[in-house]
């Protein structure tokens, strides 16, 4: 049904998306928690920084990543010198680019969930002897779970669809960084590639619909959870 090249694009998308969510979600949770619960100097700056990918052209984000994580960039150079690891033009780099673009959406979903938790419950837990970590894992995290699940789904879907930042930072390498949108773009550039483009577009549509339905079901479950 699908050609090996098409399977490659689907596989690359799933790898890039799941890796981006696996690494990005805990970081986004940390940022969401800071923004929802803490008042500290530089909070507005963190808020702006987290949300920047939402309003910047994706190409700009990809270029910024090249400047920082490229072999000549401060972090990229350090990674190369210390571990011999390069992010540019790799699947990991594609995950980084997709993850950065999806980051604000994951933060927003979890921040809303955290803000919906009555701080009084955490105070009650404190009065019962629960210290900070204990409280976070036994009260805050379980109550925010619906929001965290929603953030994971939204983040994963956003990663699958990311084009500009991925192609700028990680290029369009089949089997490595060529996710579905990049493969569709490539097919459209190739004479006679319309059939492939259509197939891949339908796969994208399918994945998107599944993600949206899952988000809807989990959202309903979350509302019930919050209302009980």
């Amino acid at each position, binding site marked *: 049904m699908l050609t090996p090249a098409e399977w490659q694009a689907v596989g690359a998308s799933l790898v890039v998306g799941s890796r981006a969510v696996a690494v990005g979600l805990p970081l986004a949770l940390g940022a969401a928690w800071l923004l929802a619960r803490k008042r500290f100097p530089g909070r507005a700056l963190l808020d702006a920084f987290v949300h920047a990918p939402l309003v910047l052209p994706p190409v700009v984000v990809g270029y910024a990543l090249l400047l920082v994580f490229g072999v000549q960039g401060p972090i990229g150079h350090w990674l190369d010198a210390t571990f011999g690891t390069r992010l540019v033009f790799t699947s990991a780099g594609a995950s980084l680019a997709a993850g950065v673009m999806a980051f604000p959406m994951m933060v927003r979903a979890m921040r809303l969930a955290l803000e919906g938790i009555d701080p009084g*419950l955490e105070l009650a*837990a404190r*009065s019962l*002897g*629960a210290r900070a970590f*204990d409280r976070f894992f036994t009260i805050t995290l379980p109550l925010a779970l619906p929001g965290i699940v929603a953030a994971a789904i939204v983040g994963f879907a956003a990663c699958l669809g990311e084009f500009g930042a991925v192609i700028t930072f990680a290029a369009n390498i089949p089997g490595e960084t060529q996710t579905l949108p990049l493969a569709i773009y490539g097919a459209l550039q190739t004479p006679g590639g319309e059939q492939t483009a259509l197939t891949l577009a339908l796969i994208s549509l399918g994945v998107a619909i599944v993600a949206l339905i899952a988000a809807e079901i989990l959202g309903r479950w979350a509302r019930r959870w919050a*209302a009980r």
Partner: protein
Amino acid sequence: MIDFDARAALGSFHLDVTFRVPEAGTTVLFGPSGAGKTTVLALLAGAMKARSGRIEVGSSVFVDTARDHFVPLERRRLGWVFQDGRLFPHLTVAQNLTYGLKRRREEPIRVDEGRVLEVLGIGGLLDRWPRDLSGGERQRIAIGRALLAQPRLLLMDEPLASLDVPRKREILELLASIGIEFAIPIVYVTHSLAELVRLADHVVLLDRGRVLAHGPANDLLGRSDTPLLAARGDAGAIIEAPIAAQRPERGTTVLTLGAQQLQIPYLGGGVGHRVRVHIIANDVIVATERPRAISVRNVLSASVSRLSAREDGAVNVELALSDEHRLLATVTQEAVRELKLAPGLPVFALLKSVAIDAPAGSRLLEIS
């Protein structure tokens, strides 16, 4: 002792509160809303930091700003019962109950789980979720959860405020018994006089961030010079006295007040058992001669011990019934002039009604 001395600011609200009450028993923080009751509780719990002050409970110093000493809330070993229960919605009743118990550190278990379930009547709810409980059940679980954390002090912030009247009575009775049953000191915040009368051993009267008075409940509630109590329509005196006789056929119970007797609406309990009654100042009539042919059954001889003007122009007359018992009567200024009321004058106090400290809180029962 609970030794509390703290100053704090919340926006434009300034709190400067100092009081010292015995640890044992129930201390009621009483005052109108905005008096700073909940702020005092938050400072005592450690949910809020004092700008300056020292807070000590028993042998533990919780706060001493002079030494930059502050024990965080989670290490103060308190049981805190909130107005709204605050059960953890994602945990079952059983998991809620044992949340604090599991986090107990070296302290020994003094409050037994089985006993708590029995006293609170919650043994049948263990597998339920908080969302499936009624308001009264939720508050019972919240009390049980706080007790099982093996606290050295129970803090209660208007625990009855969100309940309907029958539930209020039910939980009030429960609260009156748990302090004694489990021998845990309680600090209780309320603006309800009925709860104050029923529960208080010691009282701290607060208004606008200041202490108006503090001391034993029996002393404080009969005083005419505490403006907060005296200005209220239901200001009055609390009398604690033993039951002298029961006359169920006449519907009365007789209390001994020194050499005199007081008839109150029938109330169960054995002879010798001490009860509290609340006598509202507006229900006390002062006479300089013993009246005859009168329907009022309680005519007590007393002497005027103090007069104090109220803000509304009336006068509160403090009457001594015996060395131990005092009454408060509200009269007009004309009455003071005509009867020549002055400290030391022997008078008769006519009681129109007596509010008994029954399970109903302090609902008035007419016994004229």
